[in-house]
């Protein structure tokens, strides 16, 4: 394999594969842009309703994406609120309190949780609803709260892992200063370690937000519907952006609805990409600055 021909072939292979992958990615994005750019107007989101009327909930939006976006937003906020305390505490326990043996066992469990397909988590949420409906509250149906809870289970392992990694990767000098000055373990965690690891933890949370925004399998089993308007309470069904896209792809009635589907795809990609860039930025740039400010 010493001949330069092999070297050439190897480089060619690497270049070829990279071009194929980039090409496929560009085709996907380009296809959506070409088909959907005509839909990218305020009408796509607000329909015939005015901007302020829609945002201040004065009038209902009927033929726009606004209810779906509001539903996705509620879903994200609720599931992050549910997942963050649990994920953070678990991560802190694993990084700071657990002995290596205990840590080994629990990280195996959370790896398994991370590997569970999202539809199985959705099925779990659905069964919980069924169980609660039959045994306790007979007015409980699949709803926003159940979806948020299931999504929280789905992103929990990511949150645990980023918290644990962020804390474990702190340098020993940061870790030992406060205890040597007489701080307790809890004080060390709250005042030194968590602030120092904050940007990594935040980037993990933002990635989890992205997961919540994109996941369709869980919500189609636990309460997302095609038309519901703005969610009125956590016990009502709701619309969501990814579910809307799925729904359009199988049930579109005419060409204009399909174009709206392309527009919705672009909106969703835009949201997810922004979340990704934000998380990337936090992890790369701010980690240094935050480390030195505290």
């Amino acid at each position: 394999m010493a001949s330069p021909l092999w070297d050439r072939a190897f480089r060619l292979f690497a270049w070829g594969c990279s071009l194929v992958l980039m090409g496929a990615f560009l085709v996907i994005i380009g296809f959506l842009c070409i088909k959907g750019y005509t839909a990218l107007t305020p009408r796509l989101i607000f329909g015939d309703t005015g901007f302020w009327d829609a945002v201040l909930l004065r009038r209902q939006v009927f033929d726009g994406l606004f209810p779906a976006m509001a539903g996705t937003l509620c879903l994200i906020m609720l599931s992050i609120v549910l997942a963050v305390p649990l994920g953070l505490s678990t991560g802190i326990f694993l990084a700071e309190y657990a002995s290596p043996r205990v840590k080994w066992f629990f990280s195996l469990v959370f790896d398994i949780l991370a590997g569970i397909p999202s539809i199985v988590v959705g099925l779990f949420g659905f069964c919980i609803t069924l169980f609660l409906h039959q045994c306790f509250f007979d007015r409980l149906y699949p709803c926003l709260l159940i979806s948020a809870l299931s999504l929280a289970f789905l992103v929990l392992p990511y949150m645990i892992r980023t918290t644990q990694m962020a804390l474990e990767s702190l340098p020993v000098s940061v870790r030992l200063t406060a205890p040597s000055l007489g701080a307790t373990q809890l004080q060390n965690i709250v005042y030194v370690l968590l602030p120092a690891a904050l940007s990594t933890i935040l980037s993990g949370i933002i990635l989890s937000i992205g997961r919540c925004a994109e996941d369709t399998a869980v919500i189609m089993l636990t309460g997302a519907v095609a038309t519901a308007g703005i969610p009125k309470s956590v016990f009502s069904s709701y619309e969501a952006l990814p579910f809307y896209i799925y729904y359009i792809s199988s049930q579109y009635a005419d060409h204009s609805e399909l174009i709206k589907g392309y527009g919705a795809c672009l909106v969703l990609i835009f949201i997810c990409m922004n979340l990704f860039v934000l998380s990337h930025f936090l992890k790369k740039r701010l980690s240094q600055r935050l480390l030195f400010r505290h």
Partner: protein
Amino acid sequence: MDVKAFLSKSMFLGACLLSTGITLGILGFMLVLAYPLFARGLFWEMLIQPWSPGQGLFGVGPMITGTLCIASLAVVISIPISLGVACFVGIVHPGGKGRILKSVVEAMTSVPTVIYGFVGVFLLVPLVRTLFSGGSGMCILSAGMMLGLLISPTMILFFVQSFTLVPQNHLDAADALGANTVQKFFYIVLPWAWKSMVTGLILSFGRAMGDTLIALMISGNAAAFPESVLDPARTLTAHIALIIAADFDSIEFKTLFVCGISLYAMTGFGVVLARGLGQRGRA
């Protein structure tokens, strides 16, 4: 240990136990709900039987076959591409170009699955239909190709990660001896990195099996044993999404738990296998 320290520690431990409880609870809930099938001894038969409700057969055999076919095809498509891109990023151009490509690949991981499905329905399926005239275009091939694209970024990042495990001084030594990139790859990088690359492969396979939307939207969802890659097939995940509206007491609904348990078992086994490999690699 004062009260505050004790309370905080118990709180953190409680959170950890709760998270563990959720993981085991998901499996436990499905096992309890599938208990009638176990009690009647139907569970194991259902794993291989065909699905024909007319004859009273509610096996998920076709779905398991479909899942394995589509996920394997996706991995087979994804391996060479991922390997090439990972080599580009890690070995051929580790500097500027490689770093840009890696950022793009990382960005690709954030593209929602439903987008891949949507583009699959309106771009890939018509293309496959015209290229291989016959059928609707919704087949294992379309789903496998799209799924391969979906798991490629994950696999690439795993591969690149494993390439960084190679000690730099080995690479420097190879450079000093005048090795070219191929020699460097085959004699130094592969022997060091293959274990963790296999780990990445297993986890990507798990991801391909667990994906719902692509299979549901573009694999055709026919509940029969597929005979060629141009046949439609139904995956376990799509089966769950399709049957969920059935009557809760019906046997169709019970099959969901057979699907759920098999998916849980297969991905869980993959994780354990990957960890086992990783541990031995580190020792």
